[in-house]
C-alpha cells in the first residue's frame, strides 16, 4: 500500500521535498516507516530524526492523518493514512 509522508520546516529542508509517497507492506508500523524514511534520505535527514539511536529525537512530532501520535505509541499504518513529520519552529 502507498503512504504519503509530509515534511515540514527543517525536516522538509533536509528531505528536499514537501511530501513523498512510500510503498509499504500491510502491517507496517509508523515506527518502521519512519526508519525507512530516514534511511532513504540518509545523511540529510537521519541526523535530525535519529541522531543518537533508534529512538526518534524527542523534539520531532508525528501526526497520522492530522492526529498526533507519540513515538512509543504502537500504530499500524493503513492505506488512507497521511504521515506528517514536524520539526518545531520558533521564529520570532
Amino acid at each position: 500500500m502507498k503512504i504519503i509522508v509530509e515534511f515540514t520546516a527543517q525536516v522538509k529542508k533536509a528531505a528536499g521535498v514537501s511530501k513523498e509517497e512510500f510503498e509499504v507492506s500491510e502491517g507496517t508500523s509508523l515506527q518502521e516507516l519512519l526508519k525507512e524514511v530516514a534511511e532513504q534520505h540518509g545523511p540529510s535527514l537521519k541526523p535530525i530524526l535519529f541522531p543518537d539511536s533508534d529512538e526518534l529525537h524527542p523534539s520531532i512530532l508525528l501526526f497520522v492523518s492530522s492526529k498526533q501520535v507519540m513515538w512509543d505509541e504502537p500504530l499500524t499504518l493503513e492505506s488512507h493514512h497521511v504521515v506528517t513529520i514536524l520539526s518545531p519552529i520558533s521564529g520570532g
Partner: protein
Amino acid sequence: MSGFVPLTDEERAVYEWQIWVPEFGEAGQEKLKNASVLVSRCGGLGSVVAYELAAAGIGKLVIAHAGNVKPSDLNRQLLMTHDWLGKPRVESAERRLKELNPRLEIVAIPENICEENAQPIVEQVDLIVDCAPLFPERYAMNRQSVLQNKPLIECAMYDLEAQVTTLIPGQTGCLSCLFPNDPPAWKREFPVFGAVSGTVGCMAAMEAIKVLSGIGEPLTNQLLMFDLREMTFHRNTIQRRMGCPVCGENKC
C-alpha cells in the same frame, strides 16, 4: 481584571465596526479595554501581534524586547523604523503603538524574557502571546503560564511556514507537552518574509481577542500549520503528556 472601566464615547466611535461583530458587541470591547497582554518579543511576529491588539483596543500591553533596531529587522519587524536604527527596539515599538492608539497603556521592558524575569512580568498581564525566537524564552513563559494559570498563545514561523496554537492551563497541554526538548536543529537566524510573520501574527492576535472576549472557538488542543509556499493549511490534534514536568501529574 480589577477596577472594570466602561467604554467612553470616543472608544465606541473608534471600535464601532468590531462592536458590530455578532457575539462580541460592546461587552466584548469592554473586556478588551480591561485586559492586559504580554507580547514578547516585538520582532516579526510580536510587532504584528502588538499592533493588531493595539488597534483592537486592548487596555494594556506589556512588551519585552532587548537590543537596538538593526537594518535586518526592517523586512518584518513592523514596529521598527529606519529613523530608529541603532536605538532601542522597545522605544520604537512603543512610539508606533502610541501613534495608533494613544489610549493604550504600555509597559515597555528593554529585556528578553528569561527564567529570572518571567514571573514578575507575567504577573502584570491576563494573557501571554509568545513571539520569541528561542526556545528557552518560550519555556520560561510557558512555565509561568502554567504556574499563574494564564493562557498562552504560541506562534512561530520559518521560511514560508508557520504554526499557531492556544494553550490554556487546565484545558490543554502546555508548550513542554508539545515540544518537550529544545530542538537542537533550531537556529537563531532563519529565512523568512515579513508577510509570513504578519499572517501568523494576525492569527495569534485574533486568538488573544477570542480568548479575552469569549467569542468563537480558540485553537485549543490543535496545532494549525500552514505553508504559504503552497497555500496549504492543516489543523492537527495535539496531545497532552501526562508525565509532563511542567503541567503533568508529577510536575515540579
